[in-house]
């Protein structure tokens, strides 16, 4: 390598690192603006709803001067922009106030309920993707065949049958009749007091503490609701996979791959699916984010102490701090998952990489 080549190479490398820094900065700006937007919306909702926070704390029999003093103490007589500023400060430090219903700080409640939802949603998405993607590929490759029709029906049922009905039916069959799975709830009462979770993800905690009987029990509790959520996302994922795959299989590079003498299996999995994976990542990520919101119906039927159930209960009791705190958490998760899928998208598709 000559001298000028070396200089040019290092120059190129410097330019690349500068671009990488710019990309990271841009990324942070996007996160910050989105988050600010989220805070503004929740703040706005908090001011608009016809629930007086002072009234919620004091009840409607408090004397006038107490009401006014409390209003002042809560900062509600400050100008709106100052209120918003304080609100942002508190939200960023994880302080969403105290839940009226549970009398705990909202953040403590969320730390308790969110892992339950994350665990369920993650397992559900894994099941949905692991089964949904191959089914979609099968349907695309055997387009118009009986297999395609069966996958279509499976998807249609999963997407259109109400999940609470399906959940009750599944409980009836797999719990009440067959006894394959455990009753609704996260863990058996026997273990409820002996098992002390660390992270709140029971499967992980049981595994970590090598408590195999607990692990077995937790698994027997989670598998049915997770399968149902998995079925629900499978329905969507398989349809999208099929359509992405059909699109890829029509491309010229598939003809070229055949002309190279590659096997059908390699063409389907290494060429077509590898390309279809790019949009598929977004689909799976959004479906995951949807499940992380906490699927209220599933959590209700399975008595699952998750975020969906928590927010619904709070809403019914006009517990605004809890509702808004939960909303911010869900919003943050959405932002995070979107960014993650964006990043994954970039690693999967060289055309979108910043050069």
């Amino acid at each position, binding site marked *: 390598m000559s001298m000028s080549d070396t200089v040019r190479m290092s120059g190129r490398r410097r330019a690349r690192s500068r671009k990488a820094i710019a990309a990271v900065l841009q990324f942070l700006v996007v996160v910050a603006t989105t988050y600010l937007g989220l805070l503004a919306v929740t703040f706005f909702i908090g001011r608009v709803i016809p629930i007086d926070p002072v009234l919620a704390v004091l009840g409607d029999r408090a004397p006038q001067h107490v009401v006014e003093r409390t209003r002042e103490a809560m900062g509600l007589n400050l100008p709106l922009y100052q209120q918003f500023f304080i609100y942002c400060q508190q939200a960023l430090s994880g302080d969403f106030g105290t839940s009226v219903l549970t009398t705990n700080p909202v953040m403590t409640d969320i730390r308790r309920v969110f892992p339950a939802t994350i665990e369920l949603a993650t397992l559900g998405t894994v099941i949905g993707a692991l089964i949904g993607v191959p089914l979609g590929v099968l349907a695309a490759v055997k387009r118009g065949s009986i297999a395609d029709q069966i996958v279509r029906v499976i998807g249609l049922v999963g997407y259109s049958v109400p999940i609470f009905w399906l959940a009750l039916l599944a409980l009836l069959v797999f719990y009440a009749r067959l006894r394959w799975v455990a009753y609704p709830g996260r863990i058996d009462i026997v273990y409820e007091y002996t098992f002390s979770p660390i992270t709140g993800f029971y499967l992980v905690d049981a595994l970590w503490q090598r408590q195999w009987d607990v692990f077995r029990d937790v698994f027997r509790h989670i598998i049915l609701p997770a399968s149902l959520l998995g079925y629900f996302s499978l329905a969507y994922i398989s349809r999208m996979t099929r359509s992405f795959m059909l699109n890829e299989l029509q*491309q*010229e*590079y598939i*003809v*070229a*791959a*055949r*002309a*190279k*003498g*590659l*096997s059908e299996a390699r063409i389907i999995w290494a*060429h077509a699916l*590898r*390309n279809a994976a*790019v949009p598929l990542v977004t689909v799976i990520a959004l479906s995951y984010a949807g499940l992380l919101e906490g699927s209220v119906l599933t959590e209700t039927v399975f008595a699952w102490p998750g975020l969906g159930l928590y927010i619904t209960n709070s809403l019914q009791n006009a517990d605004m701090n809890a509702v808004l705190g939960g909303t911010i958490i869900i919003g943050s998760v959405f932002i995070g998952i979107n960014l993650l899928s964006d990043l994954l998208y970039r690693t*999967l*598709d*060289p*055309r979108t990489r910043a*050069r």
Partner: protein
Amino acid sequence: MSALLTVEDLRVRFPTRTGVVEAVRGVSFTLGRERLGIVGESGSGKSQTGRAVMGLTPAHAQVTAKRLAFDGIDLLSAPPKLRRDLRGKRIAMILQDPKYSLNPVMSIGKQIVETLQRHEKVGRAEARKRALDMLAAVQIRDPARVFDLYPHEVSGGMGQRAMIAMMLVAGPELLIADEPTSALDVTVQLEVLSILDKLVAERGMGLIFVSHDLRLVSSFCDRVLVMYAGRIVEEIAASELSNAKHPYTQGLLNCMPVIGADRHPLPVLDRKPEWAL
């Protein structure tokens, strides 16, 4: 010259809802280690002829022939596995537009190595070396750099050279080039053609050059088949093209304006229904 490829009464039919469409209707020719051009307008069946030889006709189409043999192997009765082994190894094809015919998410080097590893037992280092040699053979100046690039990062001409490298790396004996330069700029066309020309001559390959560009084909090939509506209407030595007898071939030739000649009005291609019979 021993026949590398024998085609006798080749027919390709596509059943559709409104009846059967015959794209190729009884095409016969033989090919040695020579350059055969197939010309014709869109829909004349020239591409489908090439794809039938490759075995890349869509699954719902019917391919029949009295004889379709490559180096003594009857292609139509050959099991799918054997045909797959032939593809890329002994018969290869170059497609029209590298923008679409290269896998966008796989690096160029990987796509070349893939062909090689499909057909030969080669180690990683060896495969990489041969891919780099092949890239050098298609006159890419910095093979090591291009090896790691993705298709969208190279120009059309460079992409088509990568395509040629990918298809020739396993050393095929017959190459079907389906409009290999139609998607390229005119200046780049000549470069790619000269590379193709050189490689075909060096390796003694048989070449079927499918194109709609009569001028290009006549300068590049030894023999030209003129196709119209799924049939060969004329077979002629490239040097004799100006003496073509068939009115359709003459029509195609007349369509090309001559610099300095009167271009008003330009002749329109004549299509007589009896030619299609």
